[in-house]
């Protein structure tokens, strides 16, 4: 049940951003409350990943207008690492490979950075291994992946599972998952969706960026948004996703033409 009186975790107001002086986001509005699951859909190139990276603080994107408030705090003035430490998580559409950096060590340093922010004790290698083993179970991942370099040589699906493993360790307040479902086989999709559901609680929120209803069959969103040309064109309940599945995005052009005029 959605409680519209639940605290607002993330408030995006008229957010505009550009990359290399080219405007991409043209005024995004979005309110995410505790306990909610949101889905953002939309055509390729409509700005979904851009929105997620701007929220996470990617240095290549310049915010040219609007505001983002995270639990009452101005998110945009924080360094990316600080955003992560206070509970914002971005599961990347294309997780990068980092040769030479051990996955286990990376996960430990990241987890400790978040724990420190929360006033929890730092975990040494042994304590961390215990923790990571419990989280590995959530995504049914082989511990062998811990011994490798971060994402190096991981298959597409393995990278996505590694993202969810990170989410499970960092216990974010607001998790943005950018096409975490793409490239997953049917079993992996169930495992990942199961993981997301397991981590969802009345105190946190999830923003799923996806192209497919099959994910939303497994994780039922409270709100569905359609993004087009750098803004959110339409919002609705889960039924909006079903409708998109049926009719596609042709209507978007007409609606855009109208807003352009207006």
């Amino acid at each position, binding site marked *: 049940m959605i409680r519209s009186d639940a605290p607002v975790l993330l408030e995006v107001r008229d957010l505009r951003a550009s990359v290399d002086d080219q405007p991409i986001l043209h005024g995004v509005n979005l309110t995410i409350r505790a306990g909610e699951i949101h889905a953002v859909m939309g055509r390729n190139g409509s700005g979904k990943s851009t929105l997620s990276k701007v929220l996470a603080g*990617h*240095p290549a994107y310049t915010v040219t207008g609007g505001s983002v408030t995270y639990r009452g705090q101005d998110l945009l003035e924080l360094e990316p*690492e600080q955003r992560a430490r206070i509970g914002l998580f971005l599961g*990347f559409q294309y997780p990068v490979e*980092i040769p*030479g950096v051990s996955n286990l060590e*990376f996960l430990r340093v*990241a987890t400790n*950075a978040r724990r420190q922010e929360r006033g929890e004790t730092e975990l040494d290698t042994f304590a961390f291994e215990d923790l990571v083993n419990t989280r590995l179970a959530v995504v049914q991942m082989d511990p062998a992946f811990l011994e490798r370099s971060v994402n190096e040589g991981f298959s597409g699906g393995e990278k996505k599972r590694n993202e969810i493993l990170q989410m499970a360790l960092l216990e974010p307040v607001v998790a943005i998952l950018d096409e975490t479902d793409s490239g997953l086989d049917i079993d992996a999709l169930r495992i990942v969706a199961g993981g997301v559901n397991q981590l969802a609680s009345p105190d946190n929120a999830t923003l799923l960026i996806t192209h497919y209803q099959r994910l939303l069959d497994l994780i039922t969103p409270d709100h569905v948004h359609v993004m087009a040309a750098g803004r959110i064109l339409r919002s609705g309940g889960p039924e909006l996703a079903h409708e998109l599945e049926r009719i596609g995005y042709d209507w978007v052009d007409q609606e855009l033409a109208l807003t352009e005029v207006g």
Partner: protein
Amino acid sequence: MTSTAVGDLVAQPYKYGFVTDIETEKIAKGLSEDVVRLISAKKDEPAFLLEFRLRAYRQWLQMQEPDWAALGYPPIDYQDIIYYAAPKQQAKKASLDEVDPKLLETFDKLGIPLSEQKRLSNVAVDAVFDSVSIATTFKEQLAEHGVIFCSISEAVKEYPGLVERYLGTVVSSNDNYFAALNSAVFSDGSFVFIPKGVECPMELSTYFRINSGDTGQFERTLIVAEDGASVSYLEGCTAPMFDTNQLHAAVVELVALDDASIKYSTVQNWYAGDEHGVGGIYNFVTKRGQCRGARSKISWTQVETGSAITWKYPSCVLQGADSVGEFYSVALTNNRQQADTGTKMIHVGPRTRSTIVSKGISAGHSVNSYRGLVQIGPKAVGAKNYSQCDSMLIGDQAGANTYPYIRSQQSDAVVEHEASTCRLSADQLFYLQSRGIGFEEAVSMMVSGFCRDVFNQLPMEFAAEADKLLALKLEGSVG
């Protein structure tokens, strides 16, 4: 994070740039046969050594400064250099208590405490200040095992036979321009002798400190491991910041007899000049090890982070059957630094094996070149080499080159070469940051990850040092 921010990050202040105010005895600038004689006389050397120096000097006069390296620097005026400088302290002190406290303090400041109370418990240190060795720790304890560890000047006096037998037998006095210069005017350096069957009971280490601004540095190091002996040796070096360039032309010779093993590690942090390329050490070094005996092993590990110019190719001549040569290198250049460094693996004996792992990191406007030769001679049946040369670029103004040369006269030799270049990308940094890892730690994680294969080779006590040194080089304001 733009490349400028990364650039700012790697531009860290040099911590060792102070000058010790101490009275020094210097000779007049310039080089001549008389100067060579004067140096030898000051050191009260036996005739064989004066002969060695004079021969080298005459050879040097006939030689040309090499110009094949990918390095650019203004011509060096060899007459504008002082070839001998020493802190004014009479003869080497028998006990540390007699050493000028200013010198002890200097080494303290450099993180190399020499006094009994503070010195590292498992590392013997020879401390060389400008041209002179000022103290060697743990000498007596080492002597109990028959290990000789002292300055080369002392060795010339105490063990002239050993020095005469080995000096110049690995790097001949006319090997190259800088080796000839060094052979003519070398001042001090370390001497290590590990007798038959002895495993050196502790790490040996020499710390070189340049203090004078107008003085050239010409150290000479000689390490001999007899049959079945083994030793691990580490050298470290720093210099004050001057806006002029100082010439440093050292020679290191290693000899390993049957079943002997020598592990030689270097953490080089000479002053590198400022961000505009003003000042810094010109480092022209000849390092070579000879695996004379069967199944002997020589391993070079170097972490090169300093110097304005680096010209250095620690090499192995694999003579003994089944002998093994290794070269592990991390070279980090920043600002206007230029490094042309690599190795030569000369396979002479049968079934000789060599491994080369080179990691170059270039930031700023620096140029970092790997230059390596693998040579397999006609008698090196079944020789094997594996080479791996990886470059990491930070920012978009830095350059990396790889010049691998392979000459094989053996059809059954196995020579493998792998090379890669990567750029420390903004996306990788962002990925780490987006997991709560600070920018500087993220850079440092990636750089040490890149260097891991080499750091793993360093003696334990120094692996952490090297990690810290790189982190320090990468420390600074996040732009």
